[in-house]
C-alpha cells in the first residue's frame, strides 16, 4: 500500500522548492503537517500519539523519541528501531512512513492502527469467532516468520505490541527491543528482554545465548490469550513466573529439555516439587485439538524443539482443521478505538477515585 503522497520526505522537499510556495518552507514540516488527536500509547522509549495529516486527512501514529537522555545523544534503541523498520516490509509488520526531525524533536511516523490486541480482547461489544481467532493467530505467525527470515528477533511480543485495524489486519509493532541476530553463529545477548508474562523459560533461567525461539514462546502465550482473553501466565516476579509455568506445564526434566540443569540460574530456582503437565486438561475447553497441538508446540520447554514460525504456519490447525480462517472484518462496526493504553487509563482513573473516596491522604 502506498502512503499518502504528502508524507515521504522526498515529496516534502519537492514542495519546499516548488514555486507555488504556500508558506515559508521551514513551516511546512511537523507541527503544521500533523495535528495531534490523542495519545494512544507509551512505547519503549517514548509516547505514541494519534495524529492527522492536515493535507491528506489521513491518520498516522506519531512516536516521539525521548531525547532527554542528554548523556548519550540520540538513543541507540531508537536508531536500531529506525534501521530495522526501514528495512522491513510485510503485511503483518507495522509500516514506518517516514522520520520527522524538527525543533529539537524526532518523531517516527507510522501507519495508524485502530486497536491493539490487549484492547480488543478486553472489550465486550464484538465477539471473535474461532475463524477470526485463527486468522489473527496466523497473521501473527506470518509476521514472525518474515522477521525471523530477515534475521530479526522482536524480543517484545505482547498484546499491546500487536496492532489490529478495523479491516481485521494484524501488524507487529514496537521494535524498540528488536535486533538482528546472527543466523550462523549464536551469540550472547542480554536476557533482560520480553515482558515478564511472555518471557520464555530459558530467559527466566538466565540464558543469554538465544535466537528467534524466544519470540515463539511469546507467540504461544498470545495464542492462548486469544482464546482465554487474558494473559495466561501472570507471574508476579521472575521466580514466581517460573512457578506459574510449572503449575501449568509441569516441571521440566532433562528428558524433555536436555541441558535444563546447566542453565545459569537452574540451581537457584530449582523446583521444590515435581509437578505434572496439566496443559491439555486446562485448555481443552478453549481450544480445538489441532489448536492445542499448535499451542503446545509453541510452548515447548526446550528451545531447540520449539516450533519455528515457518513450521507453525504449516501445522494442521491452519492446513486441515475447520473452520477456515476469516479476518475479523466486523471490527469496523466496533465503536471506539481499543488500545491497552486506554484500558490502563480507565483502570487508573477508577483506582484514583476509589483511593480518593476511601482514604483521602
Amino acid at each position: 500500500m502506498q502512503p499518502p503522497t504528502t508524507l515521504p520526505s522526498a515529496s516534502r522537499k519537492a514542495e519546499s522548492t516548488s514555486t507555488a510556495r504556500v508558506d515559508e518552507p521551514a513551516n511546512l514540516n511537523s507541527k503544521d503537517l500533523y495535528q495531534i488527536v490523542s495519545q494512544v500509547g507509551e512505547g519503549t522509549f517514548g509516547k505514541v500519539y494519534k495524529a492527522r495529516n492536515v493535507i491528506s486527512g489521513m491518520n498516522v501514529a506519531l512516536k516521539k523519541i525521548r531525547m532527554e537522555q542528554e548523556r548519550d545523544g540520540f538513543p541507540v534503541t531508537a536508531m536500531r528501531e529506525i534501521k530495522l523498520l526501514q528495512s522491513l516490509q510485510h503485511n503483518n509488520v507495522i509500516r514506518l512512513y517516514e522520520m520527522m526531525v524538527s525543533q529539537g524533536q524526532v518523531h517516527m511516523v507510522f501507519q495508524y492502527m485502530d486497536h491493539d490486541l490487549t484492547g480488543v480482547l478486553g472489550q465486550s461489544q464484538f465477539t471473535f469467532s474461532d475463524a477470526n481467532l485463527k486468522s489473527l493467530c496466523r497473521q501473527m505467525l506470518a509476521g514472525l516468520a518474515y522477521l525471523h527470515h530477515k534475521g530479526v528477533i522482536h524480543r517484545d511480543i505482547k498484546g499491546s505490541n500487536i496492532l489490529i485495524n478495523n479491516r481485521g489486519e494484524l501488524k507487529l509493532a514496537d521494535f524498540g527491543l528488536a535486533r538482528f541476530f546472527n543466523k550462523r553463529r549464536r551469540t550472547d545477548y542480554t536476557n533482560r528482554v520480553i515482558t515478564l508474562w511472555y518471557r520464555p523459560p530459558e530467559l527466566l533461567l538466565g540464558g543469554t545465548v538465544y535466537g528467534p525461539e524466544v519470540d515463539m514462546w511469546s507467540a504461544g502465550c498470545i495464542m492462548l490469550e486469544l482464546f482465554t482473553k487474558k494473559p495466561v501466565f501472570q507471574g508476579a516476579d521472575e521466580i514466581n513466573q517460573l512457578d506459574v509455568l510449572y503449575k501449568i506445564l509441569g516441571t521440566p526434566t532433562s528428558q524433555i529439555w536436555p541441558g535444563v540443569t546447566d542453565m545459569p540460574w537452574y540451581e537457584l530456582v530449582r523446583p521444590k516439587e515435581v509437578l505434572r503437565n496439566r496443559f491439555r486438561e486446562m485448555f481443552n475447553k478453549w481450544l480445538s485439538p489441532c489448536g492445542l497441538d499448535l499451542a503446545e508446540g509453541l510452548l515447548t520447554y526446550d528451545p531447540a524443539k520449539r516450533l519455528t514460525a515457518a513450521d507453525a504456519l504449516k501445522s494442521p490447525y491452519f492446513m486441515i482443521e475447520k473452520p477456515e480462517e476469516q479476518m475479523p472484518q466486523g471490527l469496523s462496526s466496533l465503536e471506539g478505538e481499543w488500545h491497552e493504553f486506554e484500558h490502563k487509563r480507565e483502570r487508573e482513573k477508577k483506582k484514583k477515585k476509589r483511593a480518593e473516596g476511601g482514604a483521602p491522604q
Partner: protein
Amino acid sequence: MATDYWASSHHRRWIVDRHTLNNARAEDLEYATHEQLALLGVFFATVISKLGKRLGLRQRAIATSVVFFRRFYLKNSYCDTDPFLVLTACCYLASKAEETPVHLKTAIVEARSLFTGEDYNLKQFPSDNSKLAEMEFYLLDDLECDLTVYHPYRTLLAMCGKDNPPVPEDDAEAGELGKPQHDGPRYWGTGIGKLDLEEGAIQMAWFVVNDTYRSDLCLLYPPHLIAVASIFFALTLHPSSRSAVDSSLAFSSSHPPSNAGGRASHGQPKRSTVVRTGDELILFLAGLNVSMPLIASIIHEIIAMYSLWNRMSEGRADWAPQSSMQRKGKSNTSPIKQDDLVTPVALTQFVLEMRERKERDVAHPPSAKPTAINKVLERTQAAG
C-alpha cells in the same frame, strides 16, 4: 524485498551525479579550487579514520562515518560549518548505527585531544557534550534519518565466495541491517560461480576499498561497482595474481581463450598447476553483468585519488604497489603548485581560513550572491 540495495534509501536518494556534486560545492568553490576541495576530501577521510581508530571503531563503522560526512556536505559547505565537529558527530552516530556504540563523552574527549594536539593544532574545539549532541541532531536531520549504508565489502567477499569464513577486521557483519539471506549459491553474469582469488589479493582489494572512501566515489557509484573496480586493482597490483593474468593474456593473444563451457571441466586440475587460474580471473570479470565503461571511470577516479593523496605528508598508503599507481597518476597531473597544501596542520589552517573569509564576506558582502545551491540535489532526490 525492501532490504536489498536497490530498494534502499542509499540507492534511491543518496547516489548523485557529478553535476549535483559540483553544485553542492558552489559555495566552497568561492574560497577554494576544485583541487583543494578534493585534497580536503582526502584529508577529512584520513582524520575520520584516525579518530575512528581511537574510538575503537571497526573498518565498517569508519566507512559509514565517511559516508555520513560526505552526505552531510552535499547539503552544507565547509566554509559554513566546523568540519571537525561534523566529522566527530559522524563517527559518533556511525558507532551507534553500526552497533558498536561509544559514549558521547568519550567521543568528544578523544576528538578534542586529537584535534588540539600537534598533528592538527586546532585552536578551538568544544569540550562539552551538548555541542556534540546538538551537532548529531543536525546531522540526523540532514541525513534524513537514513542510517543504513551499503558498502563494497560485502560484494567483494560474496564475489570471492567468502561470505562467512574469517574476514580481516570486520568480524562478521553481525547486527548488520538487511543482511541478505542467501538461500543457495549465487551466479554472476554468465553463470560461472565464484572468483578464486589468493588471500593476499583479496586483502589488497579490501585495502583499495578502504582507500576509495578518500574520494567522493561513495556518493557517485553503487557499492558493488566499486567492489568490482577494487578487484581489478588487486589483479593488477598483487604480484602473483598479476603474473597469472599477464601470462594468460600473453597466451590468449596467440590462442583464443577457452570458452566458458570448457572451463568448468578443466578448472579443477588447473588449480593445482603453477599457472593459476589467470583465464578464470579474466573471464570472471568479463562475465560480470556490469557496465565496464563505468568500472573504467571508477578506476580512473581511484587513480586520481591516489595521486592526490600522494601529495599529503601523512597517512599515505604505505603498501608497495601504490608507488606504481603514483607514477601513472603523476604523469597526467599538473606539476605541484606553489601553494600546495601538504601537512595536516596546513590543511586545518586552510579550512579555518575558508570559514573566516566566508564570515568576512557575510559581514561585508561584495555583491549579493544567491545562495540556493541545494536545489539540484533536492530535485534529484525528489525525482528519485
